[in-house]
């Protein structure tokens, strides 16, 4: 079936089921690019990746090849990698430090804020200045160093978009004794033959871990499986605007052991625990017990305690997962462990994510079957509640997060 473009998404998205064509119809994918990826706030990277003036790093925003730069005045820019002359790529390196980008084709040169500063043989233009520049993502903003871009020149601010998810990002940053997260460990790039939404929905799906990850939980004796069991006290929370989380704090509070969330004890990381107690005083115990967030920020940033994922679409049935380890400023003792744990878990050979990815790809393949036409997202509708902040909360294994995702998706896709 073909969707009615621009309207009629209520025919495809019900409160308890969504239509399979949402994952397979190229026309819907094209409309998502326009209405979500090139309009909404999208996670691009982190300020720490361009720490010094002149630093730049190539990123993707939807299908766009974007250069994230820091200019000499410390301003961040998201520039489109396309010369204003003939459309050639002006930047071919993945990262580096440069005050300007020179197009290799005819030598046009742009400052790292996008301004055209020169072009050879100016007499052919009858002037030394042209009213041209690199394309720019019109709105760039960051929150605790996490850089987002929006192709809409107006609309909700980043903070308005983040809404209830902002507090979760802040909760991650608070794990640093210096209140600062860095993403400097480099990104694994995992090509995935599946629609990007299957990933976004899965990130806070607490139903799958015991099944998809049973193989690794079993051989390592990991306690993670129990967090997502039928009798877990953890909750799934719809944070609004398409964001959702698995709030594992109720489980960690039960044990009340500092660093259990990180799979260790305080005696193994004494320097870090001491630094946190110095920094946070009486609050420290709670922070050290509760650990980091497990939050999906619509449409493409997933923070899973110690690792960060950036999902970017490629085609209706392909996307790329970028993943890296959280690095906490002032926590050297933790940072190497985080890299090590993260390398074991994520990316193409990760002992967790490779299995998730296998599920995404089989899911996409399964969606080629004609019937049943719908995917069911009703789990937990019978036991949802509203919490003290007005957010909808379901059980640890409920599909509350998915329903929140689809509400935001529908609202963006139905906008003119």
């Amino acid at each position, binding site marked *: 079936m073909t969707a009615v473009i621009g309207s009629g998404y209520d025919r495809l998205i019900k409160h308890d089921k969504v239509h399979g064509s949402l994952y397979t119809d190229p026309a819907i994918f094209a409309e998502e690019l326009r209405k979500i990826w090139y309009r909404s706030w999208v996670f691009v990277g982190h300020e720490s990746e361009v720490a010094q003036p002149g630093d730049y790093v190539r990123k993707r925003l939807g299908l766009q090849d974007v250069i994230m730069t820091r200019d000499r005045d410390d301003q961040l820019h998201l520039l489109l990698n396309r010369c204003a002359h003939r459309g050639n790529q002006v930047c071919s390196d*993945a990262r580096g430090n440069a005050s300007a980008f020179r197009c290799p084709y005819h030598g046009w040169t742009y400052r790292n804020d996008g301004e055209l500063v020169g072009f050879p043989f100016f007499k052919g233009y009858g002037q030394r200045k042209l009213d041209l520049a690199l394309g720019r993502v019109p709105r760039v903003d960051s929150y605790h160093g996490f850089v987002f871009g929006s192709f809409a020149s107006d609309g909700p601010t980043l903070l308005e978009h983040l809404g209830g998810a902002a507090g979760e990002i802040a909760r991650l940053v608070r794990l640093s004794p210096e209140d600062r997260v860095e993403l400097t*460990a*480099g*990104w*694994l*790039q*995992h*090509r*995935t*033959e599946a629609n990007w939404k299957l990933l976004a929905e899965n990130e806070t799906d607490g139903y799958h871990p015991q099944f*998809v990850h*049973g*193989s*690794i939980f*079993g*051989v*390592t004796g990991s306690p993670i499986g129990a967090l997502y069991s039928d009798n877990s006290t953890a909750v799934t929370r719809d944070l609004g605007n398409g964001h959702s989380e698995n709030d594992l704090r109720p489980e960690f509070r039960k044990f009340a052991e500092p660093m259990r969330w990180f799979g260790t004890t305080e005696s193994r990381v004494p320097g870090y625990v001491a630094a946190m107690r110095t920094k946070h005083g009486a609050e420290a115990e709670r922070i050290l017990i509760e650990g980091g967030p497990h939050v999906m920020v619509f449409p493409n940033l997933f923070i899973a305690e110690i690792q960060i994922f950036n999902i970017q679409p490629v085609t209706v049935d392909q996307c*790329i997962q970028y*993943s*890296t*380890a959280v690095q906490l400023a002032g926590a050297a003792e933790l*940072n*190497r462990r985080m*890299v*090590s744990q*993260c*390398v*074991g878990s994520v*990316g*193409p*050979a990760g*002992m967790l994510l*490779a*299995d998730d*990815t*296998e*599920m995404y*790809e089989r899911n996409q*393949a399964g969606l080629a079957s004609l019937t049943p036409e719908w995917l069911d997202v009703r789990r937990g509708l019978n036991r949802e509640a509203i919490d003290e902040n007005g957010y909808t909360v379901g059980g640890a294994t409920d599909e509350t997060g998915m329903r929140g995702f689809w509400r935001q998706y529908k609202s963006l896709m139905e906008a003119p």
Partner: protein
Amino acid sequence: MTAAAKTEANLGPVPEGFDRHTVEQFLYREARLADEGDYDAWEALWTDDALYWVPIDGGGADPQQQMSVIYDNRNRISTRLKQLRTGKRYAQAPPSNLRRLLSNIEFLGGRANPDGKVDLEVGANFLAIESRPRGVRLWGGRTTYRLRGRGGELRLAYKKVVLVDNDQPLPTLGFLI
């Protein structure tokens, strides 16, 4: 710089006592065991201080501070194989059908080992053909091995696999590369 990254440079002369034919047969056997998913026999090739590393970004970075596709010590190799043996490591269940070629085998030099002896460092190019329901994919690159002579038999102490496309998005790598 970590030990692993630092030692890249400090390569001594090729040690005595490593016969080229024996070494080649060992590398071919390691490749075949990996191709055929013979996890027990493959695991038995490794020393206790083993390191199995698939880097990104060219392989020059410090693996303790930078992400890698795989960076397994002996303990984690064991965990990886235990997961595979469950039959529910879905990224490799069903297993890939695999065959790989090794070529351009070079004795690169010697490296002091914890036993006070010298490991042989060998380089080789490889091309692996992987068939899965997802399709057929070629994996190619350069592998650096460190081999240790022990009790008349060779053991594998180190295997670093630098994929030619290590700086690009990679599909799931569920098999032993």
